[in-house]
């Protein structure tokens, strides 16, 4: 039995807009193992969220998708919408960034948390309700019977976020995709979020953490992938990555954090419509060379991979 | 600007409006007959090659009357809306710009006028002033100005917070200058949309009032009045009512279509302006 839970192969997403065609995701290839916490880090706007949406098959209507996504051996990128509905929420679930926007303000929290249970576990209303209360209690939302009947606006921010996690884990998914869980969140709350996620991970759930918060990724993950301008440019296990990042962008990214001196990366972020020729990072790279004008290959070294000519 | 004209909805409605305005202005030229020409031998004739829209109870050619009717309706529409716009925008901008008690007073005044359902207010004023086109227009202005006051005030409030307005005041521009050079140009869009929708509404209201016998003098060729005259014959000679009504609908539709298209094209916060179908 393979350990691989999610396998993404050559996934690309193109979105036509008024300003031009956005190449949001370009030939993304990676896999996530069962029970593994996998982080995809990168700048805002680099296409990471779109990748998450692509896996869930929740792309905007005008987006064009190509490639293959396999979940638990099943090719979910080829399923019909109806079949995909059985997968979402049950095998793979997503947790959004802003609980107040993600929850329906007009429906009670308990009802929303119970929905995946009723839809995917075939539970009756009463069973779902008691299980919801258990879930709320597990996530320190007390008293659960009272909270279950309340509306989102009656919850504090942190509590609603936990409720969102309860909702995402309601049907016991195997993989959770969390998109920017710590965006705009202060350090204390970040710790709380990390704690909740760890609680969930300890039960065996795998995570795809999409974040720009390098510190958070470091605390939580088993493996790291770095995303730049729609491409995955490095994948490595956590310790080796932070000890010795291989790709020049990864190095620059880590140098930019406050602890290491906050050195900014020179040059502007590239546009996702008109991208640099060849290696997308080369205009800003201290090691750039002529060969960088051609698309660099993805090289495997010591169980890691890097998309850079330096290692070819 | 050109982009606006490329919009199908806007272009189409402008063409129709252009046609109607042309018809109104050149009615004297285009109409086959004189609208006062009575031909009692040929009263109540159904549409024929001689009389494309038929004749009325006095033998007058309906097509001719419809063409001249456009004059009355369009005149009332444009006149009422222009004056209402002038009054309303002035008050609205002043209220939005200065705020404070001036704003309060103007708003309460606006609310008071708006407290009356528009038709009732127009009726009441017409009732006491008497019949006639000018009185009807006065009544309609009394109703319509509030719309522009509200829109102008809202837009002014929006614009007031913008950087360039504040900067302008910091460098010492007088209030009048700021209002004229900065606020006004930026509220043109919503005001224009309301104007177009407003003309449509005014035309409907004027036709309605004339239909009730409370608008224009009965002998004037006006679409609403024609419908009123045709009431007695609606079973025996329905064409008396059919054509004027049809033209009212087409005209109002064109104005609404235009205003609608304008609003969709100018997008953003303009979505709040809804067709209220006031009359």
């Amino acid at each position: 039995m393979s350990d691989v839970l999610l396998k993404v192969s050559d996934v690309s997403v193109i979105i036509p807009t008024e300003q031009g065609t956005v190449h949001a995701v370009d030939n993304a290839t990676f896999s996530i193992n069962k029970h593994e916490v996998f982080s995809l880090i990168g700048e805002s706007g680099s296409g990471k969220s779109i990748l998450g949406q692509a896996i869930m098959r929740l792309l905007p209507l005008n987006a064009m998708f190509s490639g293959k996504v396999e979940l638990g051996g099943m090719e979910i990128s080829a399923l019909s919408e109806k079949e995909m509905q059985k997968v979402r929420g049950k095998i793979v679930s997503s947790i959004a960034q802003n609980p107040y926007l993600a929850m329906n303000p007009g429906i009670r929290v308990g009802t929303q948390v119970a929905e995946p249970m009723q839809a995917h576990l075939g539970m009756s209303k009463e069973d779902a309700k008691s299980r919801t209360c258990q879930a709320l209690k597990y996530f320190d939302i007390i008293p659960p019977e009272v909270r279950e009947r309340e509306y989102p606006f009656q919850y504090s921010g942190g509590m609603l976020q936990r409720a969102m996690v309860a909702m995402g884990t309601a049907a016991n998914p195997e993989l959770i995709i969390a998109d920017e869980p710590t965006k705009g969140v202060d350090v204390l709350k970040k710790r709380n979020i990390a704690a909740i996620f760890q609680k969930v991970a300890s039960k065996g759930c795998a995570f795809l953490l999409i974040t720009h918060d390098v510190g958070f990724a470091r605390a939580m993950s088993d493996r790291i992938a770095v995303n730049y301008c729609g491409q995955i440019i490095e994948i490595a296990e956590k310790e080796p990555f932070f000890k010795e990042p291989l790709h020049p962008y990864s190095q620059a990214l880590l140098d930019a954090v406050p602890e290491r001196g906050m050195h900014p990366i020179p040059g502007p972020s590239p546009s996702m419509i008109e991208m640099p020729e060849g290696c997308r990072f080369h205009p800003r790279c201290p090691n750039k060379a002529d060969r960088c004008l051609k698309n660099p290959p993805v090289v495997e070294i010591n169980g890691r991979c890097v998309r850079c000519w330096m290692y070819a | 600007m050109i982009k606006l004209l490329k919009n199908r909805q806007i272009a189409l409605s402008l063409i129709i409006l252009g046609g109607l305005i042309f018809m109104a202005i050149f009615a004297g030229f285009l109409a086959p007959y004189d609208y006062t020409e009575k031909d009692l031998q040929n009263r109540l004739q159904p549409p024929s090659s001689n009389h494309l829209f038929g004749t009325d109870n006095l033998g007058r050619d309906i097509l001719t009357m419809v063409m001249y009717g456009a004059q009355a309706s369009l005149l009332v529409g444009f006149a009422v809306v222009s004056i209402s716009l002038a009054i309303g925008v002035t008050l609205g901008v002043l209220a939005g710009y200065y705020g404070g008690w001036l704003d309060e007073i103007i708003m309460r005044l606006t609310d008071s006028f708006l407290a009356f359902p528009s038709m009732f207010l127009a009726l009441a004023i017409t009732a006491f002033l008497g019949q006639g086109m000018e009185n009807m227009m006065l009544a309609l202005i009394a109703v319509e100005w509030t719309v522009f006051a509200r829109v102008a005030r809202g837009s002014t409030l929006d614009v007031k917070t913008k950087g360039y307005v504040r900067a302008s005041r910091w460098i010492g521009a007088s209030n009048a200058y700021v209002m004229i050079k900065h606020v006004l140009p930026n509220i043109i869009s919503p005001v224009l949309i309301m104007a177009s929708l407003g003309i449509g509404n005014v035309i409907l209201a004027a036709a309605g009032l004339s239909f009730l016998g409370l608008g224009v003098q009965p002998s004037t060729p006006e679409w609403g009045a024609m419908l009123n005259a045709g009431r007695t014959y609606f079973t025996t000679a329905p064409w008396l009512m059919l054509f004027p009504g049809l033209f009212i609908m087409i005209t109002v539709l064109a104005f609404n279509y235009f205003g609608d298209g304008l609003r969709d094209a100018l997008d953003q916060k303009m979505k709040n302006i809804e067709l209220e179908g006031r009359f």
Partner: protein
Amino acid sequence: MLNEYFIRRVLYLVPVLIFISFMSFSLIYIAPGDPAEIMMTSPSGGYDEAAVEAFRIAHGLDQPFYIQYLNWIKNAAVGDFGYSYMSEQSVFETVLNAFENTLKLSVLALAIALIIAIPLGVVSALKHNTIVDDACRFGALLGVSIPNFWQAYLMIIFFSVIVHWLPASGFGHGTDISYMILPAAVLGTGSAAVMMRMIRSSMLDVMGKEYIQTARGKGLSEKIIIIRHALKNALVPVITVIGLSIGFLLNGSVVVETIFGWSGIGNLVVDSILSHDYMMVQGSVLFVAVIFLLINFFVDLVYVWANPEIRYDKTS
């Protein structure tokens, strides 16, 4: 919180009410001629000099303007709108009666409007940018542009003359519904046009919200998403929509009731004007304005109540 808002709104009403009453009262002064003569004119068109004098004194018409106004207000506040010499009835009673009839018609019209507008608005939003949507939107535009008196006659010609299903006009003692259907339909379709666009707008708005995306992420069927997550939130503005339609219905009633001979307040106002019964006109206009104001106020309150968030965090 809510109370503060409520009190503030009530306070705003007061100056407006004063303005309205003042405006209604002044109406008679913009008419050419002497108010006392105007009010004492009998149906035959003449008036008795002595009676006019007596009237003047009795109603304080020789008093300064503001005292007359205050007297008038005092009376109006207790429901004494005066007595119409023209129609020989108490103004208030007549107006109240007429309003009741208009109410009956309006309720039926609203029902018709909602039955048409809600499904069309929702479907139009769900299928937005397709032919169905375009057709519905054009239909709505048509509904707002068509003169209601013309539409009324078209419907009469079809339903009464051609197929003989419904009576062409008449009051039918106010209880026979067949007399109500056509006028209510004319009013209702016009309202439906206005409502449909708002409902569509609201539905589109809701469908674009993030919580709908979340619901999809949970793997819920589109049917559940629409019914449980979207509709409830999309229809909250229905209350406001109904409130806005009240104005439309009242305005429409003027012409529609006249055409169909329905003894409602629209008909009353028109008749009174044509017969120069100015007391009645003044009374009806004031009555309608006050009721309209109160209804709008009420609708506003309900809207705030229905939005729990606004309740707890209010900036007007």
